[in-house]
Every structure is written in C-alpha cells, then in structure tokens.
C-alpha cells in the first residue's frame, strides 16, 4: 500500500483503530467502568466514520446565502444521524453507569472476577 492510499483514508484508519481499542477494552478489562469506557470509545469511532463520509473538502454548512453561487457544502444528513446516535450513546452510557452503581450497592464490588465469585 502506498503512503497516499494510507493518508487518503486517514479518517477511516483512525476509525478502525479506535473501534478496535474500544472493543479490546470491552472484552479484556475486568472493571465494569472501564468496560463502559471501552464501549463509549467503540461507539464514538462509528460517529467518526459517519462524519468523515459526509465531509466535502472546502465545503460549508448547507445554508442559503445571499450572493453565493453554487456553494460547495457538506452532506448534512450523516451529521444529523450522528446527532441522534450520540444521544443514543449517552443514554446507553448513563444507563450502564446506573447499573454499575446498583451492582456496587448490592455486591460491594465492580470487578468482574469478584462479582462472578460472589454468586
């Protein structure tokens, strides 16, 4: 692979790497909070993918301006979609943290190994 091909897809490489970092944290970490952090990175990586594909070089916001003739603008739809996905991500994260708080109340620990031993 040439350097150009790598740099040309720079955002997508970052997307893939972030995705794997998040995924690794979810699987490998024993602390429930760390798992949720990993999950959050995992979701955020996808946001980056959506935003990258809508970006047009030199593009502006898709707003009609007086005097501007055929302005180049970025595709607003993926950005709107990701706004929704961010809300979903926040809701998931807060619910996950709430459950961790409850687990800590009932078990007195948030380490996966200790929790599995407790029952």
């Amino acid at each position, binding site marked *: 692979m040439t350097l150009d091909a790598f740099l040309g897809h720079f955002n997508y490489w970052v997307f893939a790497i972030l995705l794997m970092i998040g995924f690794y944290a979810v699987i490998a970490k024993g602390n429930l909070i760390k798992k949720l952090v990993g999950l959050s990175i995992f979701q955020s990586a996808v946001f980056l993918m959506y935003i990258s594909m809508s970006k047009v070089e030199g593009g502006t916001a898709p707003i009609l301006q007086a005097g501007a003739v055929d302005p180049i603008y970025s595709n607003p739809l993926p950005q709107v979609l990701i706004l929704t996905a961010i809300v*979903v991500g926040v809701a998931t994260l807060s619910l996950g943290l709430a459950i961790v708080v409850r687990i800590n109340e009932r078990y007195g620990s948030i380490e996966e190994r200790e929790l599995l031993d407790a029952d």
Partner: protein
Amino acid sequence: MDIESHLPILQVIIPLLFSPLVVLLQPRGLAWVATTAVCILSFAIAINMAILVLGGQTLEYELGGWQPPFGIALRIDAISSLLLLIVTGAATAAVLGCRESLNQQIESHRQPLFFAAWLLLLAGLVGMVVTADAFNIFVFMEISSLAGYILIAGGPDRRALLAVFKYLIMGTIGATFYLIGVGLVYMMTGTLNLDDMARLLPGVADQTTIPFAAAFITVGLALKAAMFPLHVWLPNAYTHAPHAVTVFMAACGTKVAVYVLLRFDFVVFQSADLYHGLQFSLFLMPFALLGIVVASAVAMFEGQIKRMLAFSSVAQVGYILLGASLLTQDGLTASFAHMFNHALAKSTLFLSIACLGMRFMDLRIDQLSGAAKSMPFTAAAFLIGGLSLIGVPGTAGFISKWLLIEALMEQGEQGLLMVGIVLLSSLMAVVYIWRTVEVLYFRTPVQQDTTQQGSEVVLSEAPALMVGVTLLMAALNIVFGVMPDVPLSLAEAAAEILSGARQ
C-alpha cells in the same frame, strides 16, 4: 382523512405517548390499567392492519408528507403484519396475565416507572417492524433495548443486575455493528430507505464494501437475535428478569431482530450481494444447526425452569434461521410460521411459570414437586405449551415443525441429515419438558416454606386473572394447531415477498 390510513403511525405513537403519561397517573393502580388499555388498543390496531393486509393491501405511510426516499416511510406488508400481531399480542398477554405477579415482584412505588419502560419497549419493537428506513430501525432498536435493560434490571434477584450489564454490553455492540453496516451502505448508495437501497445497490455490486456491510449487519443483528454462539446474554437475562418481562421478551424480543435480519439480507442485499447464498449456507445454517443441538442439550441438564426454557429459546431461534437459510419459499414460510407458533408456545410456558412463581419462591425444577395437585390449571397450561414446543400433532408447534421438515426434505440428502437433527432436537425437547411435567404431576408434594414470614400456607391455584390468561394462551396453541389458516396465509405471503425480491 379517515383513521384507517393513519393506523401505521398510530401503532407506534400510542404506546410512545402513553409511556410518560402512565408515570403521572394518580393513584398508582391506574398505571396497570392504562398500560393494559394501551396494549389492547395496539393489539386491536395490529389486528385491523392484518385484516387489511390479508385483503391484499400494503399499507404505506409517509411521515410528515415527505415522499420517500426523502422522508421516512412506514410500510406494513405481510411480514410486518405478522410480527406486529406477535409483538402486540405478547405485550397484551403478558401485562394482563401477570398483574399479580408484577405486584409481587415490583414494589408499588416503582410500578409506574416500570410500566413506562414497558410501553417504551412495546413502542420500540413495533417501530422496528413498521418502518422502512434503515436508520429509523436503529433508533427504535435502541429504544426497545434500553427499555428492555431497565425492565430486566427490575428483577428481584441481584443477579439480574449482572445479567443486564452483560446484555447491555453485548446489545450495544450488536446495535453498533448494525450502525456500521448501515453507514457503509449509505456510503455506497446515499439513501436510507430500504427499497431505495435495494434499487441502487446492484449498480455498485462490484464494490467490496457491500459484502462487508452485509457482514456487519448480519453479525450485529444475529447478536440481538441470540443466534447460537452469540446467545450468551440471553439465558441469564431471561432467568433473572421479572416473570412478566420474560413472557413479553421471550415471545417477541429476538424475533424482531430476526425479522430485520431477514428483511435486510433478502430485500436489500439479495440482488446485490454476490455472497448472499454463501452467507446463509456457510454462516447462518451451520450455526443454526449447532444452536438447535447444543442449546437443546444444555436445556436437558438445566436445573432452573426459566433457564431451561431460555436455552430452549436459543434452539428455537435456530429453527427459525434454519428455515430461512434454505433460501426457498417453503423454508421461509416455515420460518415465519415458527415465529408465530413459538411465540404462542413460549408465552404459554412462561405465563404458567409466572403462575407457579406466585406460590413457589424457588423455581428450581426439583422444588416444584407435585405442584399439579394444588395448581391443576397452571400445570395443564404448562403441559399444553410444552407439547406445542415439542411439536405434537394437534398443537400449533406441530404445524411449523412439519413445514420445516417438508422444506428440508426438498433439499435431498443434505436435507435428510438436517431433518435428523431437527428430530433429535425435538426428542431432547421431549426430555426436558417431560422432566418438568413428571415433577409437576407425579412427585409427592414436598412441604416447603413458601412465605417470607416463615409461616406455612396451603398451596393453592394462582389468582384467577393469571390462570385465565394462561389457559387462554394454552387454548390458542390448540386452536392454531387445528385451524392454522390465518398465521399460515400471512407466513406464506411474507415468504413470497422475501423470495420475490430475488428477481
């Protein structure tokens, strides 16, 4: 405008709107009444639309008057109609049949919030089914999942919390995989409307992005559907959830994910994805078969009755996927018929477990000795549901197993092997159902301490409403086993739509 043309949106809007309202209702007893009313109303809407769909119509609805593919479209065809009947029917049966069970398991001051989550789960599942927009499916999937996590975490045991945490992690990964897949398809086609995707994808079919998108979507939804190796979240979640939630989710939760999986893989990708056939024959079919055998085998040795039936659910998802992975119309018909019939059988079984749960704190099978003496109706319902799950002639379960075996027979030698596996798994079902029935009917009751106070009470039948609904569901297993016309004609029409998308 007449109300009929607005039915598709009302199906989603009514539970969604009432969800915050039930929290505000005073006195709190009204929350159950309002939830039940909304569930029944949703069920009535689903029946109404099923009648229209059976009459040959496809209901289309443009949200806000924006024409697809620019706006979000809702569409009710035979597939969605069948799923809507399952989802709303299960919600109604569960909320009606588990009233006392809910009072027992959920503290009264938390009940309004519980019912709000219940209606959100209903709205989410129904939304996934009615919409024809890929991103809308994701949003509704997350609504239903988040509501589902809350409901399961309401379970009385602290292990419910661990189960729900695992479910939350795996469910979110599944949904995110789906989101990646949809993003890749959007990248190639610039549209989110499912029909528009199917129209535009053949033009870019040579791009490697397409099979990757299909892979992400398939794996993500297989996770949500608890397909065999991805099922590990399901047994604990079903076991530790409140009984009412288990009834609701076991009847329809995984099936909606299977529905989205089939709709994507057949309608959207079939014409464009060169690997469509391989994806089913090399990926879904082997795992479906493995799931059928392994999950049934685990169920045979499982000591807790809810866990046993949860593993049986994993095996049933295997049957549904096996039928679809034959890629024939008969196979798909069997798949859809099995969705309906399994929902009937499982909701009957879990309803009777909710009844048993009213009198037995400990639901390990060997603790239930002789329950049939004190709870004859509950035990009878369990027996009928169990027979339907096994697929005994005269029950609903027989119809779909027969269709599945017929579809497998068409496949020649390979098919015979699969018939063998299905029969083997049915025998295992006989073993695990019979094990329970034997304990319920033929063991002498063990005196056990069933109350929290420590004083002994005489075991008696569960409250009348619960037993009534449970028996009604059991009766429906027999009714649809003798007269399977309505679900079958919907299943056949659904299979036609999916296999018709191939041309």
